[in-house]
Structures are given as structure tokens and as C-alpha cells.
């Protein structure tokens, strides 16, 4: 119904990658290397894919690839039973690296199928380009009924309209400034490195948070609290994050009860600060938390800033190295301590 894949006329990179993923899955399942292969398949709404757990080789043809492959599939890996193959983008593999470093899955249980990433789309941005409120398929004026993805653009279709948007204009914010679009670790790399987006310098991603940091304290706090106030405490952001795997999250503790679901702003702030501290030095800006949020809270304000702090203080970027100690487990004499009160 909605074609996420190349439009079929030319053999674009997307098509090549999609075929590569299918072939790899087939091979891995046939050889018994993996019990389950996790990738993406066609979703039920325009510009949506959905995680697919493939167990027989014949089903590998369900797998797709395209700029709507937004989910970070490594969220399914902690405590996964059996051998698993998983499709990862440049950012996803960095959460996986963390999971391996933190002993949530052993390296030999997971076959990493890396994809040179050209970025995923952000539905909020599409909505803004369309000028609608609410999800694109719920636009009052122009509800989108289907979408096609070409090499460089999206073609949205509805009743009596067709609308073309350049992919570059609606990329997810993390993708726009992504420094590692080619997975840093993999067992198989689909296609080749030239198929990925051009990598940006890490600093490019900090422009926004830097600008925010320069605002007056009051302005910062009022923006922050206005955003957090809207939080409905569903904790979908936590559930979507591959690194939030604690068997009992501090938010769920009953005694002592750290966080109440009562309507206070302070509890909500505490939740968000607690969560961000727990992913400090681990978060890779994959954006899964932000995408999961049903009320569109600007969570990247926190994640990106934390990433910047970590980089500036420890010259550390999360998830790049599979043979190091996790940042929080490593101590160096020259580590700065000026934030310790």
C-alpha cells in the first residue's frame, strides 16, 4: 500500500541495500547462524516501517529498507535468547556497542548487519512542511493517504493532491548532523561506504544546544519547563531507548518512591533529569526517545546537551569502540572534577 522502497525504475542505492539485507537474512537463517533476524518491514501507515522478527528464510523478502526505517532495533537485544541478526544504522550500532560493553548481550550472540545510512525522515518536519496540525495522515486539509519514496524525495498523496518533498528537507535532526552514518562495528556491511550520507563533524550537531545554552537562564528554564510540563509520564521515551534496560527503573521503585505520577512539574523534571543522567556517556543521539514521545516533547534538548558535556569533559563519544571500558566505569587521573560540588 505504501511503498517505502525505491520506485523500482532504477536500481537505486536503497534498492541495492534492501536486496542486500534480504540476501544476508536468508543466508544467516539458512546457515543457522542466527535463530532470528530483526529488520524492518512495510508498516501500516504512510512513511512507516515496523520491526520484523524473521525466523524462516522464505520470509526474508518481507524485509525493506528506506528512510522510514526509523526504529532502533537494538532495543530488543538485552537478554535476548538465542543468536540474533540485527539491522543497524550508524547510530543504532553505537547503542549496540554499549549493550555489549555493559554485558547485556554477548558479542558472539549477535550478528551485526550494518547499513550505510543516508538518514531517516522526521514526520514532525513533514507535518510542518505540509503546514498541518497532528499526524500527516490526520491533516484536516490534506490528509496523506499514501507515500512513495524516491532516491531524493517523498511523494505524498491524498485525495486530489500530490506533494513532493525533498528528503534533505525533512531529515531527522540527528541525521542532519550525523558524524557516523557508516556503522563503526559490523559483521556484514550491506552495500558500500559510498552509499552513506556524508559524515558531518561532531561539532556541527552542537550548534543548537550551544545557541540554547547562550540564552538567559530564565528563558532556558521557562522553555524547559514548558516542554516538560506537557509530559504525560507514559515513559515511552524510556521504553524506546535501547540503553534503558534496567529490570527495575528508578521511576518504578515503590520504596522509596522517587517519582510520583501525580501532576507535579517537579516529579516530571526529576524523571527527565534522572533519565538523562542514567544515559550520560551512553546516549548516542539515535532519537528513539524523541520519536516515541506521543506529545512531541523536545527531548533532544537534553540528550544532545549531555552528549556535548561528555565530549567536552572527557573527549569521549559513546559507542564508537567495542574494546574500551564504558565511560562511567573508567577513571583517568586527568578526568575533570569541576562539576563535583
Amino acid at each position, binding site marked *: 500500500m505504501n511503498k517505502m522502497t525505491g520506485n523500482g525504475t532504477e536500481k537505486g542505492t536503497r534498492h541495492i541495500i534492501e536486496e542486500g539485507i534480504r540476501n544476508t537474512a536468508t543466508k544467516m537463517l539458512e546457515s543457522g547462524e542466527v535463530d532470528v533476524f530483526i529488520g524492518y518491514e512495510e508498516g*501500516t501507515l504512510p512513511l512507516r516501517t515496523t520491526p520484523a522478527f524473521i525466523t524462516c528464510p522464505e520470509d526474508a523478502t518481507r524485509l525493506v529498507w528506506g528512510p522510514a526505517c526509523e526504529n532502533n532495533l537494538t532495543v*530488543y537485544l538485552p537478554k535476548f535468547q538465542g543468536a540474533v541478526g540485527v539491522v543497524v544504522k550508524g547510530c543504532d550500532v553505537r547503542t549496540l556497542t554499549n549493550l555489549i560493553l555493559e554485558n547485556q548481550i554477548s558479542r558472539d550472540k549477535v550478528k551485526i548487519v550494518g547499513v550505510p545510512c543516508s538518514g531517516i525522515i522526521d514526520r514532525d518536519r513533514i507535518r510542518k512542511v505540509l503546514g498541518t496540525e497532528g499526524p500527516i495522515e490526520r491533516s484536516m486539509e490534506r490528509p496523506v493517504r499514501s507515500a512513495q519514496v524516491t532516491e531524493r524525495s517523498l511523494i505524498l498523496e491524498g*485525495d486530489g493532491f500530490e506533494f513532493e518533498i525533498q528528503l534533505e528537507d525533512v531529515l531527522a535532526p540527528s541525521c542532519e548532523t550525523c558524524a557516523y552514518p557508516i556503522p563503526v562495528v559490523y559483521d556484514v556491511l550491506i552495500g558500500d561506504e559510498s552509499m552513506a550520507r556524508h559524515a558531518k563533524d561532531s561539532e556541527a550537531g552542537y550548534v543548537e544546544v550551544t545557541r540554547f545554552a547562550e540564552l538567559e537562564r530564565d528563558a532556558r528554564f521557562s522553555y524547559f519547563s514548558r516542554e516538560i510540563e506537557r509530559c504525560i509520564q*507514559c515513559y515511552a521515551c524510556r521504553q524506546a531507548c535501547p540503553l534503558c534496560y534496567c529490570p527495575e527503573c528508578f521511576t*518504578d521503585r515503590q520504596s522509596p518512591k522517587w517519582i510520583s505520577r501525580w501532576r507535579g512539574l517537579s516529579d516530571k523534571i526529576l524523571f527527565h533529569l534522572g533519565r538523562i543522567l542514567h544515559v550520560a556517556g551512553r546516549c548516542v543521539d539515535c532519537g528513539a526517545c524523541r520519536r516515541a514521545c*506521543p506529545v512531541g516533547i523536545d527531548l533532544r534538548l537534553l540528550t544532545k546537551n549531555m552528549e556535548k558535556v561528555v565530549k567536552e569533559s572527557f573527549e569521549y563519544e559513546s559507542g564508537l569502540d567495542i574494546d574500551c571500558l564504558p565511560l562511567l566505569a573508567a577513571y583517568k587521573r586527568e578526568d575533570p572534577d569541576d562539576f563535583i560540588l
Partner: protein
Amino acid sequence: MGEDTFKGLLKIAKEDLDVLVDAFAKSSYVVLAPVAEGEATKFGVIGGMRIKIPHLTTRPVKELFFPQNETLFSFDCSGKADSTIKTPDAVTPDGVIPDAVMPDAVATDGISPRVIMGVRPCDARALVLLDYVFASNEYKDPYYTIRREQTVVITFACPRPGIACFCASTGGGPYDETGSDVMFMESDDSYLIKVISEKGRRLFQESLPLLKGGCSECPCVIFEADDTDIRAARDAKAASEQLLSANCSANVPIEAAVDTLGRSTGFSDPAWEEIYRKCLGCAVCTYLCPTCHCFDIGDEETNDYGERVRNWDSCMFPLFTLHASGHNPRPSRKERFRQRVMHKFNYFVEANDCIACVGCGRCVENCPVNLDIRQVLSVFAGGVFA
């Protein structure tokens, strides 16, 4: 919905909507309508703003009746004095209950009557389902019931159902009147107005003396619809229903699914083993669902002042069923996902003879992993989702 859907309709030009809203406000109703809150939309007091009705609000209208957080009563817990229990005696329009003394009961007095504009038929229908839970048993939830009694629901029929909508499969439809006191139907530059219930009639009688022909107090913006209007409305309804049924994902084989789930094998169907796998257990689908009604009760205490509060809860959370002993009858996401689906399409049916889903599609759209309830139902119906 028979032929008389279109009898005795009134008509108002779209641009006059705000005049009508003013008239409601003047006759002491508080008017609520969709408002934007950051990236999301919800219902709130509009207070002078122009009304803009979105396709469907992000957050359902249920929260005006069953707010996410609510004080049930307050008390002194210093241990020095004897506890005095105070229940709130009034409910403000947006659902917040101020403090006041009213032991052991909630007064049905002193609550401003409200009008909610721009509810969609699916959300209005959901209120009737919530009535089964909160207002139809041996015990009645006074907080919910009072808000229901004091609210006039003005539904706006849907001219262009979206592709996540599947209301018609659940027994409703884009022009379904269930749960509505008044229905507005779009027709070119106007709305045709159908007054459905006694509450709706009272609202119009009070707000619009001109309905009886006297135009002295209000500007004359409401007219009786003529045959042309009615024809246009009828065509719009047919077009909308056609649009919905032309979208194959909107035709969900719910009856067949309900039948499968209702058999003795429904609970242990092998499909459960696979179907939940991508679920993240995030509860978005339940928090935004207009029919989900699970809640938690707890105490909040500061400086010897305590409140017994209730907050939304969700069967998707592990804590929901965790016993103090550590035993959990629904230990994994599989059981919890099954509970959500079984509750809506089997348990609720057994208790109330109807499903607890109105096909609004919010869970379809907002699930971070696109775990589509329509697909789940199709699997149980033995088919493949289109």
C-alpha cells in the same frame, strides 16, 4: 442511524461559529474545544480564542471526565489531630478539583455546566463505553458522573476520515451520533446542526432565544436548513462513509476476531507468542486511548497534609499487577499485550456486550513501533491485513 438523521437541522455559517460560542458562554456555559499544546492537541478551555477543529486531537476527550490526575479527597495526617477528610465539592471545567469541605460525598451542585465543541464521533462514542465502567454498576464514580451530567457534547462529524480511522468497523462511523448531544456536519461554507439530546436542546434554548423566531438578543446566525442544505449534507455523509470504506485497512474483521478470542482457545492461541514481540511496553496505546480507564490510587503527602489521588495507570506496565510478595500474574510483555487486546475485544464484550474500542486509530498512529491493532485483529480473524 435512520432517515431522520437529516430532519429539522439548523444551519450556521462556518465564519459565525465564534458568535455561537459567545452565546454559549453568555448563558454561563464554559466552552471547551481543541487547543494546541506544544506539538500536541487536546481539549481545553478556549476562553476567547477562535475555534479550530483538528481532524482528531492527540489526547482524547476522556480526560475532561476522567483526568490523568485527580484528588479524591484530602486529609490531615500529622497524627496530632484526628483526621478530617475533605472531599472536593466542585469540579472546574478543565477537570481540576479545588479543595473544599464536603464529607463523605461529592455535591452535584456548584459545578459550571460545560460545552465541549469539536469532539469527533469516535471520542463521543467512547464516553458511552466509559459510562459502562464508571456510571453503570453498583458503585458509581461520583467524579466522573458529575462531569458527565454537567457536560454537553457537541460532536463534529468527520468529512474526511483519515487512513488510521476504522470507526465503522467498531460499530460507529464518521457520522455516528452515539454519545453526542449535538452534532455539527460540515457542508460547504456552513455547518448543519442536529440537536440530539435533551441536554443539547436545553443548551440551544438557553443560548439562542432566536431559535423561536425572536432575534432581539443574539445576532441572527442560525437558520433552519433547507432542502438544498440537507441534500448537501446527505451527500457529504455518503462521501465520507465511502472514503472510509474505500480504505481497505479501515475494514477490520472485528466480529471474526471477537469470535476467535471468545472461544475457550482464545486466551491460549499460539498467535500470542509472536504477535507481541515488537511491543516495547510503553503504554502510549493505552494513555491515548479514549476508552482505556485503568487507574492507580495512592497517597501524596507534604507537611502533614495529604491527598488521596488517582492517576492513570496502564496494563502495559509490569507494576500494574505486581503483588507485594513479588509474584506477578502477568510477568512479561506477552501477557500484558494480551491483556490489553483481550480486555477490549473479549472481557469487555462479556461484561457489556460491546467491544471497548471505537476505532479512533490513536494507538495505530502513536505506537512507536507501528504495532497496529487492526493487524492484530486481522490475525485473529484468520486473515491477512490489507
